[in-house]
């Protein structure tokens, strides 16, 4: 996983609440067994006027000129400004993969759905939670000012505005460290293998009915 320290990027506003992962990456793209190839289909049903499928490239499609990400002023956006409960619904991690492959490094919203929020940190996408009023303010600025960019300084947990003003944000220390160092979660846990093994032995002794081997058949 690539480390995240300081990123500066154009901001794109997505105004509706409860954006679900079915919208972020529709089901037909989940057939892939790869981790890549989803960026072209981000927000597929909103970005395009026709129905897409794996293997059909964006230049063969009819673009929905009204959709925010298709507007010329938001081309190359790297920060997505969103509303409440972003990423609700399906647990599909493909949603995070699609956002990142499209070019987003961070999503700012008043709240995120739990599974999506967790999935972000496994991949290096930074979900930033800010209070409603601050998000409202950012929406107003993005709309008022073409080329509105933000600098996200993860080390200092600050968003730096174009005028030099700063907005602080909270992050669980571990989440911050994982993104900063690009840490492999599995490696971290396996460092505790001894402890897990000891727990497992005691747990299965305490609850012997859990020691069954499914693969051995019923």
């Amino acid at each position: 996983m690539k480390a995240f320290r300081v990123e500066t990027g154009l901001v794109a506003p997505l105004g509706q609440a409860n954006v679900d992962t079915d919208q972020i990456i529709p089901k037909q793209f989940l057939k892939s067994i790869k981790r890549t190839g989803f960026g072209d289909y981000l927000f597929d049903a909103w970005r395009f006027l026709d129905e897409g499928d794996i293997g059909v490239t964006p230049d063969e499609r009819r673009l929905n000129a009204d959709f925010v990400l298709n507007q010329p002023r938001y081309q190359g956006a790297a920060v997505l400004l969103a509303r409440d409960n972003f990423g609700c619904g399906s647990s599909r991690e493909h949603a995070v993969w699609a956002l990142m492959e499209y070019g987003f490094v961070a999503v700012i919203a008043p709240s995120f759905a739990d599974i999506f929020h967790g999935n972000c940190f496994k991949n290096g996408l930074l979900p930033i939670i800010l209070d409603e009023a601050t998000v409202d303010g950012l929406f107003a600025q993005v709309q008022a000012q073409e080329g509105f960019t933000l600098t996200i300084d993860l080390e200092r947990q600050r968003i730096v505005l174009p005028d030099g003003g700063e907005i602080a944000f909270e992050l669980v220390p571990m989440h911050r460290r994982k993104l900063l160092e690009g840490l492999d979660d599995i490696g971290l846990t396996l460092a505790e293998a001894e402890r897990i093994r000891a727990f497992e032995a005691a747990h299965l002794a305490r609850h012997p009915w859990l020691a069954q081997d499914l693969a051995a058949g019923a």
Partner: protein
Amino acid sequence: MATLYDKIWADHLVGERGDGQSLIYIDRHLLHEVTSPQAFAGLRLAGRDLWRRQANLATPDHNVPTDNRGAGVAGIEDPVAREQVETLDANCRRHGVLQFDIHDARQGIVHVIGPEQGATLPGMTIVCGDSHTSTHGAFAALAQGIGTSEVEHVLATQCLAQAKARNMAVRTRGALPPGVYAKDLALALIGRIGTAGASGHTIEYMGEAVRGLSMEGRMTLCNLSIEAGARAGLVAVDDTTLAYVHGRPFAPKGTLWNAAESHWRSLRSDPDAAFEQTMEIDAAALVPQVTWGTSPEMVTGVDGCTPDPAKAADALKADGWQRALSYMGLAAEQPITDIRLDRVFIGSCTNARLEDLRIAAGLVAGRRLAPNIKQALVVPGSGLVKQAAEAEGLADVFSKAGFEWRAPGCSMCLGMNPDRLPPGEHCASTSNRNFEGRQGYGGRTHLVSPAMAAAAAVTGHFTDVRVLL
């Protein structure tokens, strides 16, 4: 002083990782073809093996067709989907994971087969790369949906690293009236608190209406916890739980059962346990629910109307309602019973168990599909549900009435397989998500109980099922 969630958490806590996150031991890991291939590939890349092969159970469900099943994997027309199912086959073979493959009579939707096999047991921690893993909470198991990276993490470590959620109690008062089911209770709750209402919480469902539900009903209720934003849903163990589990293929037997039972009986919140949030619902006053919009919180009673965006509390909400109404092709303040339907789908991990099919068949018996219904699918949740329903004559009831009786799978719940809702068409569906395009590109989904879906199928529009009972 502990809640049920606190107790299961403590029983599985390996330790703190020193970073605000805890390591939780996972007893059962369920797998399906869509969210596991990248996890297995990641393991291979890192040269890692499975921590506890025998804790895993897999089945293909999202991509499998619901007809032409004799052809097996070769019957999957879409080559990309076929490769995904073949990849699950190969991964399970390579790692020695038990799989009910496409030919197995026990194959089905992963959340239906776990309980059916007794692979889901009270007090367990259960994960699956699927948000509706919350279903298994009906057994007082801490069951959570996870992403693909976490699937890989659990395969490699048998643990999940996470922070503990908060406790939320949903207390029901009174019993559900006739014609009103677990589905209606869940939808009414989501309508009340919103799709983010239980974010960061584990919900425990309590009270007379919950105690009165069968395990099937409790599974429906817990299944929809995720649509309220909850991390998981739980129902405490009682005689109903134990009676369901007893005798299942993977359930403990003999002295092991006795030991398990005495532990399981302790799986309830202490009377004075503290919940960070409490929600009360008057179950006795509920009416059958129907969603009108593109989020499960956009729901009302069958006796209600679509809302008027002009009357929304704020501009953001008004905009959301307006968008939903226009996607759904509905007007403001349109009576729910006026909505004309094109298709009916009875299936999904929410409502495709035997009890659901019995309830729907009970309404369908002696009636026929309304002429405007182009297709009505009944898709049992598993091969064993299908067999049982056929043995009871339910399949005949549906077929005689004009329904299509299919083979098990996710089917039109999400339309990754050939069962799709065409653009612009309205579907009465017993599934769990009415998101834009969920059942098919441009499709318009209305979430209802199996009884309401059956009533809609025979009348052609939403009908209060209580008048047909």
